[in-house]
């Protein structure tokens, strides 16, 4: 390209900016992808795990409420049972609204079935006017087993989401590695670019100036022209030509004066 020095510098810097822009955009895109993955982990899996924890807590409180009721603190017991039931129902609704994994729907259906049976058993004990011994027998033989079944079903939902979370963390790790790659490549490219720029500055800026210095140092009037031998067709070439014109004008003037 036979452009001026200004254009050469401008284009070189534009290319550098373009390269940095490309690297920046690429890294931003990759980090956004990574952010999406983290967000997905938090939204999809962590929310389900949280719902499962709420279910477990409420289930345990419901069981405590039943025991309170059985030992005679009926108002407090029935209040705890109803509050826990509404918490579990809400947690199940939340979990149903956040189904993201295969088999998650099935797991929640199992929880609903198990809890319905358990809750029916609790209500059965509370509503029927049986003796203390009968209630205790019913609790030991049926309600407690249903409690553990429900807890186990909730645990399975939790494990399902925890496993998926672990897998997602692996994916996030891989994505973070990928997000670094454009930066690494860009650094390498920028180093090469800098070396090339340095090379071209030396060849097309420093060398012509040195040639001029040497040309001026070694100049003697008999040679006529200043031999700078500039190869590029930019301002340096124009300068060389202008110096040579100046020399010939001065030489002509000297010849005229001598005559």
């Amino acid at each position, binding site marked *: 390209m036979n452009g001026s020095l200004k254009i050469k510098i401008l284009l070189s810097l534009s290319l550098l900016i373009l390269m940095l822009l490309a690297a920046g955009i690429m890294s931003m895109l990759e980090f956004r992808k990574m952010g999406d993955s983290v967000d997905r982990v938090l939204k999809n899996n962590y929310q389900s795990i949280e719902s499962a924890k709420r279910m477990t807590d409420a289930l345990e409180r419901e069981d405590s409420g039943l025991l309170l009721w059985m030992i005679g603190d009926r108002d407090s017991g029935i209040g705890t049972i109803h509050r826990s039931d509404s918490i579990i129902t809400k947690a199940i609704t939340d979990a149903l609204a956040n189904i993201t994994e295969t088999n998650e729907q099935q797991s929640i259906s199992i929880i609903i079935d198990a809890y319905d049976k358990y809750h029916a058993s609790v209500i059965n004990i509370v509503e029927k006017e049986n003796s203390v011994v009968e209630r205790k027998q019913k609790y030991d033989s049926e309600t407690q087993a249903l409690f553990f079944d429900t807890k186990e079903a909730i645990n399975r939902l939790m494990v399902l989401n925890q496993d998926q979370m672990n897998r997602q963390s692996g994916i996030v790790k891989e994505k973070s590695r990928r997000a670094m790659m454009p930066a690494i490549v860009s650094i390498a490219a920028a180093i090469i*670019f800098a070396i090339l720029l340095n090379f*071209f500055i030396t060849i097309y800026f420093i060398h012509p100036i040195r040639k001029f210095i040497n040309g001026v140092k070694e100049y003697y009037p008999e040679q006529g022209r200043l031999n700078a031998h500039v190869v590029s067709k930019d301002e340096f070439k124009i300068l060389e030509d202008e110096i040579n014109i100046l020399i010939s004008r001065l030489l002509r003037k000297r010849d005229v004066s001598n005559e």
Partner: protein
Amino acid sequence: MVRTRVVIKYLGYILLFNALFLFISAIISFFNKENSLNALLFSAALCATLGVFPYIFVEKIEEIRFHEGLSISVLGWIITCIVGMIPYFIWGGEFTFTNALFESVSGYTTTGASILNNVEALPKGLLFWRVSTSFIGGVGIILFVLLVLPEKKGVQSSFYRSEVSDLSKMSFRTRSRHITRIIATVYFSLIIVETVLLKLLGMSFFDAVCHSFSTIATSGFSTKNRSIASYDNVWIEMVIMFFMLISSLHFGLVYATMTRKKHNIFTSRPTRMYMFVVAIGILLITFQLTQEKMFGFWESLRYAAFQVVALTSTTGLVTADTSLWPLFSIILLIYFSFQCGMVGSTAGGIKFDRIYLFFSSFNKQLKLILHPNGIYALKMDKKVIEHDLELQIIVFIILYILTFFTTSLLLSAMGIDGVTAFSASFATIGNVGPGFGGVSSFGNYAQLPDAAKYLLSANMLLGRLEIMNVFALIVMLVRKK
């Protein structure tokens, strides 16, 4: 004296050429909504930026000297291979830095050796880039660049001297400036015809294009994990086999045959000999496979023919697991992996013409022993081979064998078993791809240590550049210092 700025300017052209194919791959990725789009676009932008940069400073080049041509040729290959790995490296998956470099070198040198356990997991954009590297490497990046560059004094001839071997030039009965057009005509015609035929035989258009690139460039990259075996279609195999064989012949002779010239593949004695040797190899393996009751006669012929042609053409596409074949058949296949195709083709390896001339030279030496005062000329297709060229061929064969043994030895020192070390060495220096042992036809190079992958990458480059050019550049650089 080498003008560095001239070398850099031409390396810039090479980068721009690669950027073009990266953009095409990115477009494929875009239309298929794949996650490789960013990696391909970024690589293309980077390549284009670095390629354009020298153009800003370096003035018009009126003439290129031989040493500059040699530097551009060797450095062009190295830089191309480094650039080619960027999209793999950024995309991730199975591509670590070493794996990405290995896959890139394997593609450009048309070796077709892969580190991928699951090729089908790659997005289409990356699959296309993978075969594009073979497509570019098939006839050589430098020749491709020459296609788009205006003809200038010394530019083409200095590249030819470094890129096209003297032996290869003999069968191009035309001036050097026409050679690029001949190679390009044959290359593109074969690719178009094969793509159409494979599409008609039921391959998807994408697969047909990828396999045509792979066949004509003799690389052997496939879009399927089980290569051509996954199609289990004898007609597809026959079409691919035909084009593999054609691609292993001298492109000048193929062009002469297409244009009905007198000196063509049917009249060229070395070519007829080559065909004869390939046919004998196929028959011997067929008989053994039949006799060992591995397959019936026709099936044996089908698999033997495909595998012999795949290895001798250095394509390396696969229809059968050859590592399970009897020892005699394996030895024959190893021979074909050494012999390879003809000079002036896209095939790698020693090349049949050199072996042919080596034995002709041996015959001449015998005659000279019997008749010391006799004058005997070494001839190929009625053309006398100069003594320098005869010596060059012998030196090349010795260097080839030495490189092969050194690589085998170094691989063994890395704890790799003998069969794998031996076959990985000949499969990479010959740019064949599949070997035996751990790197057999349905296997890959993934399990090798990183150091082995770097060594084999260097081996592939040495094989593609026919060893001497690399040494010439090293000597040139050392002397300059």
